[in-house]
């Protein structure tokens, strides 16, 4: 994809992320509302779309985070199925229903609980198309949420996207704003392969302009959410906000930062990323997940492989610290990547002498 195309795709797809405060005020929706609307529209459009998860039906109040509020009333309890606490059964049922031709959405309440359903995701959902020689496929969305910063501690905060990126056959998506959440969810449901859809609890209340009905954000396309010429800051999910903040601050100091929101974490939009870094000659990759062996390692490696001679500095990586996520707020804040780290990494690339 050329640079021009990248820009164009940004113009087409990039939602209002708060960086353009001069736009006329449209109706605003939160990420929870956006996800709820995406599910509602998808279920109205295709009766094969179903949702399985703990507490998701009306009798339980429409989900712990209310993402499915109102849906079982509208589409019935055969399509919105509240499940026992049985993640293997949830995932397996969704795999089977998907192979049978439905478009199930499996809700795993928090990302750490994928650990009890990895067999179904990795050995089955990801592989059935390949192992059947293409006779079957698994049009499944696995919705889950997580996030560091709310004091949920070691077993309720992990970001595990790097595991799934390492598994051929899975796509991974994460929205950084409400509009993208809506558009990515519709695309994920329509995808004929399994998609892991990662939400961040801390983003649920964030608002975007309502992108309207039947909005789609294509899978596999990044958004250049801020243009710049000195360094490319590549990230996804909640940290896009930090990235934009830092980019704004550094602009005042004369450093022009281009910010890319991957949106699809894997397989990611390498064309957009490479084109940007070719232009800037510098790159920083940022994610909330543990830095070591995170997706940033792959992105940085591919950039070094593709642009070794053009890079003005080694690609910098920022991610979570190397420990379980601690509960105490002071420790959690020490754990999570912060804006000072982002600024420092950018400065490292700017000051590098090759």
């Amino acid at each position, binding site marked *: 994809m050329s640079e021009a195309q990248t820009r164009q795709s940004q113009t087409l797809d990039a939602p209002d992320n708060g960086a353009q405060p001069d736009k006329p005020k449209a109706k605003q929706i939160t990420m929870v509302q956006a996800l709820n609307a995406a599910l509602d529209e998808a279920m109205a459009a295709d009766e094969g779309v*179903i949702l399985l998860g703990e507490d998701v039906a009306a009798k339980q109040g429409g989900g712990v985070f209310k993402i499915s509020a109102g849906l079982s009333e509208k589409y019935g309890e*055969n*399509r919105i*199925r509240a*499940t*026992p606490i*049985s*993640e*293997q*059964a949830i*995932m*397996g*049922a*969704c*795999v*089977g*229903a*998907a*192979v*049978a*031709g*439905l478009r*199930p959405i499996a809700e795993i309440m928090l990302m750490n609980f994928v650990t*009890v359903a990895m*067999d*179904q995701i990795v*050995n*089955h959902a990801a592989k*059935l*198309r*390949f*192992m*059947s*020689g*293409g*006779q*079957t*496929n698994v049009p499944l969305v696995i919705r889950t949420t997580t996030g560091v910063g709310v004091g949920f501690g070691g077993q309720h905060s992990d970001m595990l996207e790097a595991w799934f990126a390492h598994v*051929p*056959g899975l*796509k991974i998506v994460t929205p950084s704003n409400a509009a993208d959440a809506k558009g990515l969810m519709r695309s994920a449901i329509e995808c*004929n*392969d399994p998609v892991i859809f990662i939400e961040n609890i801390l983003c649920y209340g964030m608002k975007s302009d309502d992108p309207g009905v039947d909005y789609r954000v294509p899978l596999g396309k990044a958004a250049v959410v801020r243009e710049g010429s000195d360094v490319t800051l590549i990230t996804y999910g909640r940290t896009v906000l930090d990235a934009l903040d830092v980019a704004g601050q550094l602009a005042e100091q004369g450093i022009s930062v281009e910010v890319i929101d991957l949106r699809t974490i894997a397989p990611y939009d390498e064309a957009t990323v490479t084109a940007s870094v070719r232009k800037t000659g510098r790159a920083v990759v940022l994610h909330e997940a543990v830095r070591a062996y995170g997706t940033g390692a792959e992105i940085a490696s591919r950039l070094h492989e593709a642009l070794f001679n053009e890079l003005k500095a080694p690609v910098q990586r920022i991610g979570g610290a190397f420990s379980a996520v601690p509960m105490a707020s002071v420790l959690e804040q020490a754990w999570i990547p912060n804006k000072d780290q982002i600024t420092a990494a950018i400065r490292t690339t700017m000051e590098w002498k090759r």
Partner: protein
Amino acid sequence: MTTKTATNDTATIETASIDRAKLLDIYTRTMKVARFDEKMRSLLMSGKLATIYYTMRGQELVTSAMMAALNQDDYLVTTYRGQHDQIAKGVPLDLLIAEIAGRATGTCKGKGGSMHITHPATGVMVTTGVVGSGLPIANGFALASQNRGDGKVTVTCFGDGATNIGAFHEAMNMAQLYKLPVIFLCQNNRYGEHTAFADHTKVDSIVTRAAAYGMKGVKVDGNDALAMYQVAQAAVDRARAGEGPTLIEAMCYRMMGHFFGADFSYMPPEHIAEMKAEDPLPKLNTLMLEHQFTQGELDAIVAGLEAELEAAVEFALNSPFPDADEIRKDVFEEEIAA
């Protein structure tokens, strides 16, 4: 050790008689499996084929009786030890053997192999190599049928060892909760790899577990064609009528090692004697004669199966291997760039 058919709601049930055409159908499926298995073992023994193969010697009848109660478009989810289930369900021998032999003409273009046979045209939807993982997936097919009202029944096969894994428990509970049209067919061959039944659980019988979910459970002698068919048909009828799932525990024996060529010296001699006495193949032959089939008729059927089998082997072993670039196909809908 013969097993009386018993359910967890009533006591022992009486075995009814069977329609001769159905019996012949069961016989034909059973012998197709048996001839296939013998052929596979000889190909492996002679080195004409080199692959992992889990023989179902001793379990031929269980599944033939089960599949004889299903329609072609009913769904099957089975395991690595599933070639009998697939054949009895109708997967063509040529495509099956080609797959086992890793050929481009196999059901899965050689990508899956014996542990991962898929053939949607005959309802063989998923074959898994992970113990217990088929049960939750089977629920998904049944759930799709329930939502669509298509009247299909899903059967999932697994072993006795699989009933100790978490996926079994979760799937059983969910199936009953949703009253899914699914049949859990436990082929209790008394061993999980090298571990005897009594060394993997302290419960006497797998069927006891059905009560832990409020599910109907039936224990049956899987080497008794009439009893096995009757139990299978009743479970299919219940599922189709919307009355929910059934757990069938079909008692049988694994008459060889865990996979072809594997040692089974850990089986005590009494167990070996017992299993030989219960071999379903001679028992079925006797039953056929009792039902006024002549040995000549039976032999003619087997001869027909042999011919089909020879042609299938011929086809498979003369088929091309897949192209190397197949590893870039079927990962996603779109091909991976080279």
